[in-house]
């Protein structure tokens, strides 16, 4: 109970402490967008005959006709009420767009991370147990291949092989086959929503859309996870307590999986947090290649159009997710190693 209470207090303190950082991010992004040389009003007023009058009107609609300090104050006031503004590219409120698209990105990223971990941990452990063996070299090769190939290349290759040539994967167009009806939205995670209502046809459809992009992303992040597991396992396996355990006649399996792995996990968890946050923002190429309706491709489109509100909303969202992920990582630390208290 006391442990939980201390975790709760710690969480609360950390959340409070992150507020100034979030404020800074909001202001900084706001200013950064205004420094960009493109004028979104001109960009969006590009219909035939759209003249100065239309440009002015869009400027008014976006609040760009006021001086920048006034715009900033208005923006912060809107933010305080949870209003992130309206996207010109989709015509929808940014908050609604992000709410609709975030589950898509999260579902993809989480699945990719789980896939990557389920491969990286065993591979890393195997490589550490037999350093410089054939297995170790094989793992090294796989990791190098994964990390040196940009995701859009591996994504397009996988599509070419599994969709175009073999026909094993469905067409890479979003989260669900267009001819399958969408399960009622509860969490926004299609796998969860479909399972909740027992719509297994939709579940299979969603899963089959998911595996190819998830594999693409997993391949890319395999390297940091597997290499970190290997390195930290190697360090732990040579330490005194392992030798003691072996000397005491504990089984190899118990020594490796319980004593060594648990101690080796701390750095892996750290890397995992970083990898997850990076994946969420940086998977824009995967989202583009697979027409995945996620937040990253949304933000990129908005950035190219100098559509201020969605970009600001996206950066703020990412900052918040970073804060949350770091919190979760801290809690995981505590579980992996009770000696650690991060305050």
């Amino acid at each position: 109970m006391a442990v939980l209470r201390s975790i709760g207090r710690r969480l609360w303190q950390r959340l409070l402490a992150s507020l100034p950082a979030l404020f800074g991010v909001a202001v900084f992004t706001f200013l950064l967008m205004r420094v960009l040389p493109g004028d979104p009003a001109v960009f969006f007023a590009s219909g035939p005959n759209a003249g100065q009058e239309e440009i002015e009107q869009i400027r008014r609609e976006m609040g760009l006709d006021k001086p920048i300090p006034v715009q900033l104050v208005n923006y912060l006031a809107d933010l305080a009420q949870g209003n992130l503004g309206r996207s010109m590219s989709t015509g929808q409120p940014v908050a609604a767009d992000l709410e609709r698209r975030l589950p898509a990105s999260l579902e993809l990223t989480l699945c990719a991370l789980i896939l990557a971990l389920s491969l990286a941990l065993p591979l890393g452990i195997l490589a550490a147990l037999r350093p410089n063996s054939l297995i170790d070299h094989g793992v090294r090769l796989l990791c190098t291949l994964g990390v040196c190939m940009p995701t859009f290349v591996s994504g397009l290759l996988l599509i070419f092989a599994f969709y175009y040539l073999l026909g094993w994967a469905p067409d890479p167009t979003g989260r669900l086959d267009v001819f399958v009806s969408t399960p009622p939205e509860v969490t926004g995670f299609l796998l969860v929503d479909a399972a909740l209502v027992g719509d297994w046809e939709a579940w299979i459809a969603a899963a089959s859309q998911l595996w190819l992009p998830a594999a693409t992303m997993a391949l890319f992040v395999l390297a940091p996870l597997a290499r970190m597991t290997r390195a930290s396992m190697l360090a732990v396996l040579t330490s005194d307590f392992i030798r003691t355990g072996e000397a005491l006649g504990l089984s190899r399996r118990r020594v490796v999986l319980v004593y060594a792995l648990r101690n080796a996990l701390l750095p892996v968890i750290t890397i995992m947090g970083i990898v997850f946050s990076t994946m969420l923002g940086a998977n824009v190429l995967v989202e583009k290649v697979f027409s995945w309706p996620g937040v990253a491709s949304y933000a990129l489109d908005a950035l190219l159009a100098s559509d201020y509100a969605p970009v600001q909303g996206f950066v703020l969202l990412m900052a918040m997710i970073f804060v949350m992920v770091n919190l979760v990582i801290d809690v995981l630390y505590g579980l992996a190693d009770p000696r650690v208290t991060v305050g």
Partner: protein
Amino acid sequence: MHLTRRDLFATTAGAALAAAGTPALAQSRAETLRQVTGNAINTLDLTMPGSTRESFGLAMHTYDRLVAFGRKPVPGGFVFDHTNIRGELAESFTVSPDGLKITLKLRRNAKFHDGSPVTAADVKWSLDRHVTANSLAKSQLQISSYTSPDQFAVLDPMTIEVRLPKPDRRALMNLCVPYCIIINSTLAKKHATADDPWAQNWMKENTAGSGAYTVESFKPGEQVVLRRNDNWTQGVDGKLPYFRRIISQTVPEAATRANLIERGDADLSIDLLASDIPALQQRGRVKVFGTPIANGFTHIAMNTRMAPFDNVKVRQAIAAALPYEDMFQASIFGRGARLYGGDWTELPPTADFPIPMPQHTNLAKAKQLLTEAGFPNGFNTTFALSASQAAANEPVGALLKEALAKIGITVEIQKLPDAQFNTFQAEKRMPMFIDGATAWLPETDYYLKLYFTRDQRWNFSAFNNTEVNELTEAAQYELDQAKYAEMCRKMVGILGREVPEIFLWQPNHEAVMTPKIEGYTYQYYRQIDFRDLYRS
């Protein structure tokens, strides 16, 4: 044999249904058209500032207009024909001999999607909205002398009269354009507020039309699903469209779009990469309909008010230095119509525009013109292109840089993000750049007025020629075809002499579809007209 998961679903479901005696599902795929596009529809009301071209395409299906352009056959498909106008919501229309009145009689059986009849009151409200509310329709209607609600009169519940201050060549044509939607005024008024008397906020997310299709689902940036309106009678000969459902899906990656169509999972796309088209055609698994964008042109604009391009000889020198044929092949693989190499000098042979202009590659002449202009040793300048058009325009830039270096001009190529490119273009801050242009009403005087007169955004070269200014003002109201043609030839002659822009080509509009899709029409708003399509 490839067996995809969808085939599996289709066969098992088909088998199950066939057993029950209804082969409906297999049919429904045949009667569904799946379009894949790299762009997105951002509003259901296309007259809202900021609406995308895809939104125009959508509104052509959800709303009807009073009148519509016809189409004419070309090899492999059809092209719009603005000289052949038919009634859409109007059963018949007459233009008075003096050109000051257009009387339109509405179809008796035309109904809005909610079942209420289309009346002259709805037409009046819609046209009033277009000339009054702050929308894109307002400036569009101004180009044909529509400025005030007083010009639209209800004669009886089924007849509307449109009055003009001057006979205007574009008056009838302009009622055909995408913006001139006829709205269910009873429905829209229910959602109007004191601040928003024209229900503009409501119409962004809802439709109130009578068009061939209704919106079944609308996820901006992902997909839009349209369902056929089975009560639609406004088509040619009252025929219903073939497809019951249209799925328009956003697929950002062009290579993926091409894969989808080659595999037969999607039916149609009009925005594939120009460089992929020859290969697709060669493999022969898809049908490609390519036709030059008849109502547009790709051009290199030079700022006629910025030194050294304010000197006509400099512009002529550059026009003489460019390797047109190499550019045509490198940029669009020769898929389009050339707008250079015209064999006329003073006046063009016809009143049409765009036509091949008298621009020929002649380095000696270029060098001489440059010397006469006072730049025997050339000068330094920049050449800008927008990032989204880089695939086609970067090769042009490279060839231009190489060619101009031969006459001493050093060119720095600037590839700019689109928002920045558009801003610089509107502010006339770029000395030289490449871009495309289209006009909804492909009338010579309209091109000239839109792209070569006044201080406004689309006057790319900031051109100001007294004669062109006067001629565009007069030609619009000239009903005598012979006199009009004379004016047009004069204006195009001036463009050939003054070279405010170097005309390059009309690139192809390439529609790539599965082999069984028929009836494709190239429309002037460069979107798909689903109403004409069918599966053979």
